[in-house]
């Protein structure tokens, strides 16, 4: 990366102009190794859960991933738009007041494969994740929070008028 | 009918416009469709196709061709290649009707656009 502090402060300054109130932050890139030999993924002590991602239904995916079922909890706050502007890019986030959280997963019930993403919340990391998901059509979106060995969930319907199967 | 655009209730002015054009196009097609009878020949197809193509070229001069005209012309050619000249003639006439409607639109809009202008 060839960026300098200088141009990034330019970045945030101009962007603030347009997007009042959304503070942005500078970063300094260091060296990179694009497509070099994969360094040992120190954190990837768990394998990518292939079986869970292969499941079609939501219940099956949760069972494969966690081996148990989730109960709804109002301590799980799921934030998703009422109507997605485009199914290809739906901003979805979750945050929780539960403690001892070890993982957070997102499922889109009516996608071809329900499990979209699963995040390991390691010690010291806050139980809050935002990401952007694809939705094939209007569907319930569920966030699962694993806390103290139990599963908690929140679900919200997101309407999709332009499907996100195009990429 | 190839009108697949879905419109919500709040777009009624647009919906009316769409309806108006659709009906206009359809009308032009009715007049044309009734003249194609019996088994058509290669020559009939060629003549009908040439007329449609000429109309579409005229629409092009008005910078106002419709996508449906081009695709219908292509369909006509395909039908003719398959030896189905009845269909080929009918499609040529449909393309001609579409091209004529686009010419009508292009000509009337030369003045009509002013009605939409913000002043």
């Amino acid at each position, binding site marked *: 990366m060839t960026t300098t502090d200088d141009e990034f402060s330019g970045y945030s300054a101009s962007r603030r102009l347009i997007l009042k109130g959304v503070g942005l*932050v500078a*970063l300094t890139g*260091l060296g*990179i190794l694009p*497509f070099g030999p994969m360094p040992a993924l120190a954190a990837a002590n768990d394998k990518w859960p292939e079986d869970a991602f292969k499941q079609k239904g939501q219940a099956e995916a949760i069972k494969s991933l966690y081996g148990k079922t989730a109960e709804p909890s109002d301590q799980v706050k799921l934030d998703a738009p009422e109507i997605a502007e485009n199914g290809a890019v739906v901003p979805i986030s979750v945050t929780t007041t539960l403690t001892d959280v070890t993982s957070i997963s997102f499922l889109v019930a009516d996608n071809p494969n329900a499990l979209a*993403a699963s995040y390991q919340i390691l010690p010291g990391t*806050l139980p809050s994740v935002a990401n952007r998901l694809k939705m094939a059509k209007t569907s319930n979106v569920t966030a699962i929070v694993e806390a103290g060995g139990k599963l908690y969930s929140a679900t919200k319907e997101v309407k999709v008028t332009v499907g996100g*199967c195009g990429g | 009918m190839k009108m697949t655009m879905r419109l919500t209730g709040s777009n009624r002015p647009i919906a009316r416009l769409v309806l108006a054009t659709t009906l206009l196009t359809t009308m032009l097609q009715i007049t044309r469709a009734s003249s194609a009878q019996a088994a058509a020949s290669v020559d009939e197809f060629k003549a009908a196709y040439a007329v449609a193509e000429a109309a579409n070229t005229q629409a092009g001069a008005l910078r106002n061709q419709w996508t449906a005209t081009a695709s219908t012309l292509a369909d006509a050619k395909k039908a003719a290649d398959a030896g189905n000249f009845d269909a080929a003639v009918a499609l040529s006439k449909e393309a001609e009707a579409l091209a004529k409607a686009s010419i009508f639109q292009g000509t009337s809009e030369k003045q009509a656009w002013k009605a939409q202008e913000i002043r």
Partner: protein
Amino acid sequence: MASTIRVRATATGDTTEVQALIQHPMDSGFVKDAQGQIIPPHFIQQLTFECNGKAVFVADWGTAVSKDPYVKFSFKGGNKGDDLKISWIDNKGASDTTTAKIS
């Protein structure tokens, strides 16, 4: 070639907020190309964040994560100037890594 990874990491008090955007097609395997051929799935499977050599966040992704994926999270313990290393690997074995400084 520029990195496929963009990161912003900011420390406020003892909490560091991290946002990352990665350039990747995230092909789902359900889409056909112009010739009607299925575009085979091509997506990032795992994305890892390490602060000063210690893993803080691991993302396991499927094909339903959007093209040019984005993720945001926060962790405690990072300080201004600390190294944050980000790595991803996709289902075809391609990978990329970058290290950013927390600001």
